[in-house]
C-alpha cells in the first residue's frame, strides 16, 4: 500500500490510523491462522489427552505459573525499589547488573544448574564422598522437578518485572513521594500506598511478560521432565505428527491467556495512572546504612549471583577447560545473532510505537482487537508461531509465483519463505507483546491533556510523538528495544524452522549441541549469547540512568 504523507494534519491521522490497521492485522495473521485450525480436524487427540494426561499437564502449568509469578515479583520489585529510591553501596552497579540474568536463556540455566546439582554432578558427588552416604540415604534438592523449573524460570524472568517496575519508580515524580512524606507517610507507607499502586500497570506488564514466557517455555520443562500444557502441544505435534491438533491445543492456551488478560483489565477497570509532574525534580535518594545497607546489598546481589554469576561462571569454566573450540565460526554466529536481534528490535519497537500511539489517538475496535491478538503470541511456543508464519508466507509466495508465470513467464521461486524477512516477521509477531507492553506502560503515564495541549498549539500527531512523547518516554522505548533484542538473541524455535540455507545463530548452535547431549560443547555459544546480550544491557541501562540524571 502506498501512503502519501501530506503536510496537512488531517491526513496524518489517516496515515497513522491506516498503517496501524495494516500492521495490526498483519501481525495478528499468524495467530488467526493458528486459530483457524479450530475449525478443521477432529477432537480425537483432545479426547485422548483428556482421558490420560491433560489434568496433569494443566495443573503443572498452573502451578508453574503461580510459582514463577510469585518468584519474579519477589525478586523483581524489591530490587527495583531499592535501586531506584534508596542509596547503598553498589547501587549503581546493581542497577544494571540486575538485568544480566535476562541474557541467559532459560534452558541454558537449566542445563548449567543440572550439571552442578544433579545426582551425578560435583556438588552431590562431593557430599557423598565426604559423608560416605549413597543414593537415597540423604536428602538433596531435586533440581529436575517442578520446583526446580520454577526456580530456573524465575531467576531468568524476574528482570522483566525489575526493568518495567524500575522504569515506573524512576518515572514517578519524586515530588509525589515527597509530598506524601510531608503529609505524614513514612517510607514504607509511601512505598505501599503510593509507589506500588502507581507502578501497578508496569509491574503487571512485567509479570504478564514473565508468565507468558513461562507458558511458552518448552526447553526447560522438557529437560526437567515436568509435563506442562506446552509439552502436550509438542507431544501432539512431534509424537502424533499432527500439526492441526497441536494448533488446536495452542488455541486453548491462547484462550486461557486471553482470559487472564481480561481479568486483569477488568480488575483495573476505569483507573488510569498518569504522572502528574511535567518537570521532574531530581529525586533525593533515601540513604541506607548499617545493617539496612547490608540487607539491601544482599537482596540485590543474590538474584545476580544465582541468575547470572553462577551459570555464566559454569559456562565460562566449561568453555575454557573442556569444550571443543575447533569450530572457528563463532564470530560469524555472533554477528548473525547480533544483527538479527538488532533489526528485530528496531522493527518491533517501531511497530509498537505506531500501534500504541494510534490506539491512544484514535482507538479503533478492529485495531485494538488485532493488537491484543498479536500480543498474545508471546504466550505461544515459537514453533507454533513459526507455523502460523510459514503458512501465509508460502501462500503469498505461491500467488507471486503464479502471477510471475502468467505475466512474465518467469520462475521466481520462493521470494518470502526461507528468507530473513520471514524470520524478522516472526520475531515481530512473537515479541510484539514485549515491545508494546513496555511502550504502552510508558505512554499511559503521559496525561492525555498534554496531547490535547500540544495539538491545540498546532502540533501534528507525529510531532506530538516526536517532540513530547519520545523524550518523555525515552527510557520506556529503550527498555522495549533492550528486551526485544535480548529475547531475539535467545529465540530458538522460530529461528530454527524459518531461517535461510547456511544461516546459523548462536542460539541455534547452542541448541544443536545441547540437544545432542553435548552440554559442554554448547557452552561457548551459550556464553556468547550472554556476552552479546550484555552489550545492550550495559549501554541502555546507562542511557536510562542518564535520562534519569538530567531533569
Amino acid at each position, binding site marked *: 500500500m502506498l501512503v502519501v504523507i501530506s503536510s496537512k494534519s488531517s491526513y496524518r491521522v489517516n496515515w497513522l490510523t491506516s498503517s496501524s490497521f495494516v500492521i495490526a492485522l498483519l501481525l495478528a495473521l499468524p495467530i488467526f491462522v493458528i486459530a483457524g485450525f479450530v475449525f478443521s480436524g477432529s477432537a480425537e487427540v483432545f479426547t485422548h489427552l483428556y482421558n490420560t494426561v491433560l489434568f496433569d499437564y494443566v495443573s503443572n502449568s498452573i502451578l508453574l505459573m503461580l510459582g514463577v509469578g510469585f518468584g519474579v515479583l519477589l525478586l523483581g520489585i524489591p530490587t527495583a525499589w531499592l535501586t531506584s529510591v534508596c542509596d547503598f553501596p553498589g547501587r549503581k552497579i546493581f542497577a544494571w547488573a540486575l538485568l544480566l540474568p535476562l541474557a541467559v536463556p532459560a534452558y541454558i540455566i537449566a542445563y548449567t544448574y543440572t550439571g552442578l546439582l544433579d545426582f551425578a554432578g560435583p556438588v552431590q558427588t562431593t557430599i557423598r564422598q565426604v559423608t560416605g552416604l549413597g543414593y537415597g540415604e540423604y536428602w538433596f534438592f531435586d533440581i529436575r522437578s517442578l520446583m526446580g523449573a520454577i526456580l530456573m524460570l524465575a531467576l531468568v524472568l524476574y528482570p522483566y518485572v525489575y526493568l518495567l517496575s524500575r522504569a515506573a519508580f524512576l518515572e514517578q515524580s519524586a515530588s509525589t513521594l515527597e509530598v506524601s512524606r510531608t503529609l505524614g507517610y513514612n517510607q514504607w507507607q509511601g512505598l505501599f500506598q503510593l509507589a506500588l499502586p502507581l507502578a501497578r500497570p508496569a509491574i503487571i506488564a512485567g509479570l504478564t511478560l514473565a508468565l507468558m514466557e513461562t507458558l511458552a517455555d518448552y526447553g526447560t520443562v522438557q529437560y526437567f521432565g515436568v509435563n506442562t500444557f506446552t509439552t502436550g502441544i509438542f507431544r501432539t505435534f512431534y509424537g502424533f505428527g499432527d500439526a492441526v491438533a497441536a494448533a488446536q491445543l495452542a488455541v486453548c492456551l491462547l484462550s486461557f491467556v486471553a482470559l487472564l488478560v481480561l481479568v486483569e483489565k477488568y480488575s483495573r477497570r476505569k483507573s488510569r495512572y498518569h504522572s502528574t509532574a511535567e518537570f521532574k525534580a531530581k529525586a533525593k535518594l533515601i540513604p541506607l546504612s548499617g545493617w539496612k545497607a547490608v540487607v539491601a546489598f544482599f537482596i540485590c546481589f543474590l538474584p545476580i549471583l544465582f541468575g547470572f554469576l553462577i551459570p555464566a561462571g559454569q559456562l565460562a569454566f566449561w568453555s575454557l577447560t573442556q569444550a571443543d573450540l575447533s569450530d572457528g565460526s563463532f564470530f560469524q554466529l555472533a554477528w548473525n545473532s547480533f544483527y538479527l536481534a538488532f533489526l528485530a528490535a528496531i522493527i518491533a519497537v517501531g511497530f509498537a510505537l505506531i500501534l500504541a500511539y494510534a490506539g491512544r489517538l484514535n482507538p479503533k475496535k478492529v485495531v485494538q482487537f488485532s493488537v491484543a491478538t498479536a500480543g498474545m503470541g508471546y504466550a505461544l511456543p515459537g514453533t507454533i508461531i513459526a507455523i502460523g508464519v510459514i503458512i501465509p508466507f*508460502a501462500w503469498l509466495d505461491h500467488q507471486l509465483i503464479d502471477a510471475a508465470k502468467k505475466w512474465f513467464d518467469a520462475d521466481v521461486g520462493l521470494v518470502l519463505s526461507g528468507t530473513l524477512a520471514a524470520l524478522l516477521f516472526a520475531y515481530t509477531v512473537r515479541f510484539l507483546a514485549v515491545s508494546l507492553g513496555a511502550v504502552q506502560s510508558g505512554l499511559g503515564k503521559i496525561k492525555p491533556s498534554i496531547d490535547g495541549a500540544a495539538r491545540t498549539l498546532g502540533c501534528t500527531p507525529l510531532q506530538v510523538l516526536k517532540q513530547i512523547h519520545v523524550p518523555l518516554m525515552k527510557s520506556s522505548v529503550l527498555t522495549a528495544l533492550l528486551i526485544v533484542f535480548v529475547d531475539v538473541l535467545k529465540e530458538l524455535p522460530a529461528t530454527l524452522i524459518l531461517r535461510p540455507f547456511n544461516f546459523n545463530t548462536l542460539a541455534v548452535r547452542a541448541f544443536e549441541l545441547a540437544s545432542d547431549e553435548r552440554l559442554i560443547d554448547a557452552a561457548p555459544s551459550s556464553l556468547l549469547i550472554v556476552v552479546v546480550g550484555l552489550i545492550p544491557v550495559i549501554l541502555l541501562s546507562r542511557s536510562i540512568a542518564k535520562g534519569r540524571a538530567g531533569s
Partner: protein
Amino acid sequence: MKFTHVVSTMAMAAVFATGLLPLSVSADDNLVNVYSARKEALIKPLFDRFTEETGITVNLVTGKADALLKRLQVEGNATPADLFVTVDAGRLHRAKAAGVLQVATSETLDKLIPAHLKDVDGYWYGMSQRARTVFYVKGKVDPAELTTYEDLADPKWKGRICIRSSSNIYNQSLVASMIDANGVEATEAWAKGLVANFAKPPAGGDTDQLRAAAAGVCDIAIANTYYYARLIHSKKESDNEVAAKLGTAWLNQEGRGAHVNVSGVGVTKYASNVESALKLMEFMASDESQTWYGAENNEYPVVKNVEISPVLKGLGEFKADDIELSKLGTNNRAAVELMDRAGWK
C-alpha cells in the same frame, strides 16, 4: 548523541549484511539443497567432503524433523529443498505419507543398502544405524539376567531402571517396534510394568540415564549405543569412568533381535536437482562416509562389510531386529497413546 551514532552505523551495517544473503535458491546442476533434522555438526563435514570431491555445492538448513516437514508441505512445488534428512525411520515414513518425497532409487544404493534398512517403495534409504539397548552396572547385575525388552517389566527390576521421557522419539520407536511384535494390549501392559520399575521419574537425556546408573541411582539404563560410545571416547575422565562402570547387554537375541533405528534420507517430491541429490546419497553410502559415521558419530554403518569403529566393536556383535522400519512410523501414534495411558511421563 554518540549512542544514536553507534546505533545508526550498526543498523546500516546490518541492512548491508542482510542484502548479501541469498534470498532464494534456484535450480542448478551443481547444487543440492538439504533440509536436515540431523544436526549440522553430524552431517556438514560429510557434505564438505562431497563438495570437495565433486564440486557440487550443498546448502543446508537444519531443524526439527516435524517442523521441516511442515515447511516442505507448505512450500509445495516451490520448495528449494532436494533432500530431506531425518534421524529416525518414523519421520521418513511420515514424510512419505505426507506426500513430500518421491521415488528416487539408484542401482548403487539398492546394491549397498539391505532391504530392511530402506523404504519398500523406494522413497528413502537408511544411511547409518544405532541400537537402543540396556546398559547395566557391573557387579550389581548379572548380564545373564538381561534377556528381553519384555522382561524389563518384570517386578524383579522394581526401582532399578533409568529411562528418559516418553516424549522422546527413541522411546516412541522402541515401543512402536514392540507393538509390531506383541500388539497394543500386551505392550500397554508391558509399559505399565516398566513404569512401575522406574528408579526415578523420567528426566534428561540418554547420557543422563547412563550417568545416573553409574552414580548409583539405578542398576540398568536404557540408551542409544552412540551415547555410550561417546562416553568411552570422551576426553573427560569422569565420562570414561561412567562408561567403565557399565556393561552392554543385547536383548531378544534368541528372538527378533535388538531394536535398531536409522538416520536416513529421501529425495523431495519437487526436487529441482534430483541427479545431484542422488549423487550425494551415493556419497553418503560410500565406504568413506560409512566409516566416518562410525568414527565421528559412533553409529553403525548400513553397508555390509564396512569396518565398524573399534569402540562399537567393543560393544560386541549382536542380532538386530529386522522389522520393516516404516512400521515404526505407522505405529508411532499408538505408541505415544499407550505410553500416556501407562503413565510413562
